[in-house]
């Protein structure tokens, strides 16, 4: 008999709307769960129990009065702490924004609230989304639910942990170079990076704005698709959001697995990828063949440039996006009255930002500086075109591309933190989708040495329906 907090988003919403379940009872169960285990996993930076319970009571009242409720009625959702929530502390897990209270909601938050979802708290992350392990959080790391001595992945580690440990039914994360898919893989949950432009970034505190998207994390494919349906759509406040017609992704099913041509890039299984991970995911590729798809190997030689290209672009954009944090209008300030403008702001930024953030800003500044711009930033943008064209060519032949999400199993906390480049190497399989802009999902596909492995599926622009369809077929037949 499952506990209330264990219910899927679909079940909670259906039962609450069907008056079989009280939202107040459900939310109380969720917070009971959080109180019990949160110290072991540290998924959250802030919790909003009082307001969540109040909203739950409101929802129960509205239902009694015969009102129609939204598609996420009463569902507990955890929000990554780089997404602005009005009046609820939003820190980016950084000392710089430790006490920042956003004066507005991100568009995705408004959309959740319009569907009667209940926000339970803000989740822990790598500082300013820079990292793949959630270890650079100013508030300390989150822990992998399957082995608390290991990282949960990052930068949306807290969101993945909250969903995996049933502290929330759904979570929002953000993905700039793999930050949703990595923790989804490491925590054995489903996580999707949408097509660039599908989800509004208004209210997402920017790290690298030509690369990132807000996306859903859930314990199953249907819930993930449901959440995407609700948060996606054109927004006049985000000029990079697209106007394509919305889909209800939760309705789609791929009935045509045996017409699917799946491409398996050999570079996804080659140098830098752990043998046991590669073997595990190859088994899943064979599983897809059992479902009727045809799988064929291909080569994408530009992938060897993807990591360097990603980091040069991301760091350059970060140096620009984080220039606003000077302590003048918001953010950490040393509050000196004698220092001048430059000295005070330089000190605020030294104290407010952790070392990884400062490393990236400094390298990004260099890559954009006079005399070096052409050699680094512009060159990276050109290589980005080469990678994009290679993917476009691959998608003319294949419906989707498949491989491991991560090149390694979840590593121990502290293992890679002193070697920044070693940590960057964890992103080799996820950054291509951000560079190209196409959607990608991570589906749990088994365990190796007791640790979770994720399979990544990449689709052409706006073909999230393929990702959910294949994911759902795989999940139904080969549940992990």
């Amino acid at each position, binding site marked *: 008999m499952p506990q209330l907090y264990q219910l899927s988003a679909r079940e909670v919403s259906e039962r609450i709307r069907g008056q079989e379940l009280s939202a107040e009872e459900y939310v109380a169960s969720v917070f009971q769960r959080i109180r019990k285990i949160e110290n072991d996993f540290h998924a959250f930076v802030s919790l909003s129990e009082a307001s969540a319970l109040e909203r739950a009571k409101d929802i129960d009242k509205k239902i009694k009065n015969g009102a129609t409720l939204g598609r996420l009625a009463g569902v507990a959702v955890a929000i990554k702490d780089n997404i602005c929530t009005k009046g609820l502390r939003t820190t980016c897990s950084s000392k710089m924004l430790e006490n920042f*209270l956003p*004066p*507005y909601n991100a568009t995705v938050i408004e959309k959740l609230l319009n569907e009667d979802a209940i926000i339970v708290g803000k989740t822990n992350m790598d500082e300013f989304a820079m990292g793949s392990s959630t270890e650079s959080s100013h508030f300390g790391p989150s822990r992998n639910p399957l082995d608390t001595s290991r990282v949960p992945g990052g930068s949306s580690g807290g969101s993945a942990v909250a969903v995996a440990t049933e502290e929330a039914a759904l979570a929002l994360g953000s993905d700039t170079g793999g930050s949703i898919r990595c923790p989804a893989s490491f925590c054995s949950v489903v996580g999707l990076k949408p097509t*660039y*432009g599908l989800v509004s970034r208004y209210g997402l505190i920017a790290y690298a704005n*030509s690369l990132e998207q807000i996306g859903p994390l859930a314990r199953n494919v249907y819930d993930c698709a449901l959440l995407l349906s609700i948060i996606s759509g054109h927004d*006049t406040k985000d*000029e*990079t959001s*697209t106007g394509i017609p919305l889909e209800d992704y939760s309705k789609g099913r791929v009935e045509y697995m045996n017409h699917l041509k799946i491409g398996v890039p050999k570079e996804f299984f080659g140098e830098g990828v752990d043998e046991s991970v590669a073997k595990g995911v190859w088994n899943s590729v064979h599983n897809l063949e059992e479902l009727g798809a045809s799988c064929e190997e291909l080569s994408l030689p*530009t992938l*060897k*440039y993807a990591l*360097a*290209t990603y*980091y*040069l672009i991301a760091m350059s954009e970060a*140096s620009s996006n984080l*220039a606003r944090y*000077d*302590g*003048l*209008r*918001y*953010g950490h*300030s040393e*509050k*000196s009255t004698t220092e*001048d*403008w430059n000295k*005070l*702001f*330089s*000190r605020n*930024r*030294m104290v407010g930002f952790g*070392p990884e953030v*400062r*490393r990236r*800003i*400094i*390298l990004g*500044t*260099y890559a954009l*500086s006079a005399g070096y711009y052409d*050699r*680094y930033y*512009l*060159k990276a*943008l*050109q*290589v*980005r*075109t*080469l990678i*994009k064209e290679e993917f476009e060519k691959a998608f003319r032949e294949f419906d989707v591309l498949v491989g491991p999400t991560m090149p390694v199993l979840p590593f121990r906390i502290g293992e890679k933190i002193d070697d*920044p*480049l070693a940590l960057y190497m964890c992103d080799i399989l996820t950054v291509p989708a951000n560079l*190209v*802009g196409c959607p990608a999902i991570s589906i749990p596909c088994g365990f190796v040495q007791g640790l979770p492995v994720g399979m990544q599926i990449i689709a052409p622009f706006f073909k999230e329906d393929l990702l959910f369809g294949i994911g759902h077929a795989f999940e139904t037949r080969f549940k992990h």
Partner: protein
Amino acid sequence: MKKTFQGFSEEEVEHIAWLARIELSEEEKKLFTLQLSTILDYFHIIDEANTEGVQPTLQVLNLVNVSREDVVEKSLKSDVALANAPMKDKGYFKAPRVL
């Protein structure tokens, strides 16, 4: 022929940190010089890519001139905009002296 990257000097790192308005301690200057040199050295792998005549990708959607009508919309009230400011006075953000 492009000059091969020899690594950063501490003076270079100090200069770039100044451009970025980030103060660095002496130990961190040493540590960052080492780390950033290693990282940038790896990034030089992109030198091998043939990008002659290749257009840079600035954004993946090929959007052009996305704009809205020049109509006044709701905006933040002054006290709300000032709410997170560490130093404020008479409705203004208070800044450290420039000179």
